[in-house]
């Protein structure tokens, strides 16, 4: 392939005006296991697929708490991701120490992007091989950003990165308009559905995924396996249909399941009516 001539170092342009090393770095992100983020006005949910290299080993940690109000999910070279998470944590702590106030996530994202850009313009460096989905809060509400190895960053309502993320993106594209006013529970359910799409047939269980939530009045936290499994069971029990139009009624969910359960009941077939009461009882409020 002729492009091999210009891809030796990051400071060499190709005649077509491309930096191949940066593009190769973005390939690394596409090869990593999937990570998904979605946000409403008040909450951000991050979800990722846990791929363990063998049955004997534990899976890689891909979701990191950066501060009470910021979390990040990574895809690609996880080692690079850990280093950048440490940088982000440091920035947050330093800002908090000086200003007694949380670092606005938009500013952190820009700092991170500038850091990544430096690696695309030094001959002795290489770009970071990791894509970061950063969810966080600032004065204007909840935000979700995606940081590229190229040094670009974009804000999203919902996004997915990593292998087979296109399947998740297709699902998210269908549903994203409902996310803005979605309840916390529905947002998490949507994340699980999107995650399931990337597994392409493989069964979604709490052992092959990780979910983390943060929101206004709720510090960043990773949901424990039990809770995740319960949520998965809920939608497996009630029927395959995702919580579709119920997300338009956020006031239904003061931590209660009647919202999604009612919607699922509406969306699912009649013979499911038997199961919805059961789902209702098993479904304790999501405020863990």
């Amino acid at each position: 392939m002729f492009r091999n001539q210009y891809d030796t170092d990051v400071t060499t342009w190709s005649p077509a005006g491309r930096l191949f090393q940066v593009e190769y770095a973005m390939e690394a992100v596409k090869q990593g296991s999937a990570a998904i983020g979605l946000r409403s006005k008040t909450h951000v949910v991050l979800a990722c697929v846990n791929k363990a290299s063998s049955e004997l080993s534990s899976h890689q940690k891909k979701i990191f708490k950066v501060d009470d109000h910021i979390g990040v999910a990574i895809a690609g070279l996880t080692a690079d991701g850990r280093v950048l998470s440490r940088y982000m944590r440091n920035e947050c702590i330093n800002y908090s120490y000086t200003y007694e106030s949380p670092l606005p996530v938009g500013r952190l994202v820009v700092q991170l992007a500038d850091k990544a850009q430096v690696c695309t313009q030094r001959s002795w460096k290489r770009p970071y091989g990791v894509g970061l989905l950063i969810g966080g809060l600032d004065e204007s509400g909840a935000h979700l950003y995606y940081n590229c190895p190229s040094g670009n960053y974009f804000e999203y309502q919902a996004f997915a990165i990593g292998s087979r993320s296109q399947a998740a993106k297709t699902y998210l594209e269908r549903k994203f308009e409902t996310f803005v006013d979605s309840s916390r529970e529905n947002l998490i359910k949507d994340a699980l559905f999107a995650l399931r799409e990337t597994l392409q047939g493989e069964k979604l269980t709490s052992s092959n995924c990780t979910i983390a939530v943060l929101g206004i009045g709720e510090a960043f936290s990773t949901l424990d396996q039990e809770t995740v499994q319960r949520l998965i069971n809920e939608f497996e029990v009630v029927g395959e249909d995702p919580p579709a139009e119920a997300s338009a009624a956020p006031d239904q969910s003061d931590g209660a399941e009647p919202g999604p359960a009612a919607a699922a009941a509406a969306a699912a077939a009649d013979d499911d009516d038997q199961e919805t009461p059961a789902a209702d009882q098993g479904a304790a409020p999501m405020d863990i």
Partner: protein
Amino acid sequence: MPGLMLASAAGSDSQRTLYPYVTGTSVVGIKYKDGILLAADMGGSYGSTLRYKTVERMKPVGKHSIIGASGELSDFQEIMRYLDELILNDNMWDDGNSLGPKEVLNYLTRVMYNRRNKFNPLWNSLVLGGIKNGQKYLGTVSMIGVHYEDNHVATGFGNHLARPILRDEWHEDMTFEEGVKLLEKCMRVLLYRDRSAVNKLQIAKITEEGVTISQPYS
């Protein structure tokens, strides 16, 4: 951090603030219904001489805060330079976030404490008040970095003469007129009893709409 690293030559003592030269006296501040009220006279004393009679010791900081200073006036001007740089950088982000009074006071605390640790203090006691998103904030920081917030604060002699009055007569949700009357009472007592006080003062008001510093009056 903008302006935090002051390149002071550690060796020569002539670079340090050993004692203040031109000083301002007390600043008094209270929270009221719509925001914060600050009062300070306009005097700059040169030792025992009441040298300068029109010194503005209160200045707005950004959109949400106001600072009042007592102590060495040249150090106050230095602090204003730090704050102007801080606010400028904050505005340059242009992202809808802005530094509120709590953040500014904490920044100042870090600056004051840092200088104190280098034995080169900014010889000031500062009052910082502001209101952001409906949250009122009033705090103070001294030249050694001691800081706290309260419903009413004062510096210097104000602590001894004004605060007892405020403790008795301050209450939640005072109106603007009540607040001004209370501050004027404090300033009158200070004029009687503080020899560095002058009979020309300003009252500063900060509400959600913005900052207003009154014309000087006596």
